[in-house]
């Protein structure tokens, strides 16, 4: 064993001890060859082996299954940027797009465009047209109390046609209902003379 080899072996033993699995990998072969060929090197190793034995007596802490189970129950927080709104995520999935933000932006733009087109079509070119649709006064059933003849000639009717304006609409005059006042009618209970 040369002085240089001895010096390096002592350095390695001082630092890593006599357990060769801790020795630097890149020097391992040379050092093992040295120990195998030199009784002096083996004696140096034996000195350090005692401390390794002492250190090994500390043992190892037992495993903690309960802690492992607790930790496995935790879930890393999913960052907001990785959360896809469901419908958008679905469409993004159909399109094979990994990033959902562009799909969401497309949705928003398409919705705005659709709303704009719909409003312009609904309002028409001249605003209110006066078209009241198919509903006319004639279609509205008159509320006629019972006992009144069904055929009551209207005092005035607007026309046979559907009235065009609100001024053409007139209420049908109905005769006063032929309800008798209760004091003018026959008594409801007839007195019976008792002999």
């Amino acid at each position, binding site marked *: 064993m040369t002085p240089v080899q001895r010096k390096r072996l002592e350095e390695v033993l001082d630092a890593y001890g006599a357990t060769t699995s801790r020795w630097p990998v890149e020097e391992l072969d040379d050092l093992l060859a040295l120990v195998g060929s030199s009784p002096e090197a083996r004696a140096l190793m034996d000195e350090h082996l005692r*401390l390794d*034995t002492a250190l090994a007596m*500390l043992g190892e*802490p037992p495993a*903690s299954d309960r*802690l492992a189970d607790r930790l496995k129950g935790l879930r*890393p927080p999913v960052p907001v940027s990785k959360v896809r709104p469901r419908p958008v995520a679905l469409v993004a999935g159909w399109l094979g797009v990994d990033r959902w933000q562009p799909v969401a932006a497309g949705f928003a733009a398409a919705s705005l465009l659709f709303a704009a087109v719909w409003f312009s079509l609904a309002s028409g070119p001249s605003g209110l047209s006066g078209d009241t649709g198919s509903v006319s006064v004639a279609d509205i059933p008159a509320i006629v109390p019972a006992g009144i003849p069904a055929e009551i000639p209207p005092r005035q009717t607007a026309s046979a046609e559907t009235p065009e304006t609100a001024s053409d609409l007139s209420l049908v005059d109905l005769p006063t209902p032929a309800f008798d006042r209760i004091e003018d009618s026959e008594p409801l209970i007839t007195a019976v003379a008792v002999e």
Partner: protein
Amino acid sequence: MTAREDDVLIEAASRGDAAAWSGLVDRHLQAVIDFSWYKLGDRAAAEDIAQDVFVRLMKKAPNWEPGGPTIRAWLFRVAMNLCIDRMRAKPMLALETVDYVPLANPAPEADIDDRIAWQRAVRAAIDDLPERQQTAIVLVHYQGLSNKEAADLLEVSVEALESLLSRARRKMRKRLDPLKAELMEISS
């Protein structure tokens, strides 16, 4: 167990993959407990620290950048800092309270009292080391890290690591030498 596999697991875990997260716990929890236990000598404290370390990893997961420090190195570094904080905040444990751990292969004739006395002596020798020397011993002797891994973790060169280890072992040998004869009897 490769760093690349860890990167894949943590990326999946950050997307809510429970199996990937469990895989990370299985791969690294015991090493973090061991490291903290060797540093502190107290199982409950070691478990507290290990839990804290993994909660931090869980929070870190969505922002984990692959290709940087390995997950194991990150875990050890966080555990190391938490152990230092704890040692500063709390006085060292009395030796009587240090855990006794049965050895895996005790000699049948060994006296249990002698073993407890030895464990306490070794524990005391480790506790008395300066912090960085202690961490170097724990990483290389007990955790089995290579010299390069341990040097990276301590942010020193391999030569500086060897210096830390040499000084630590010299101190421990000096302290334990008087008990050497007993040790050789027990371990024979």
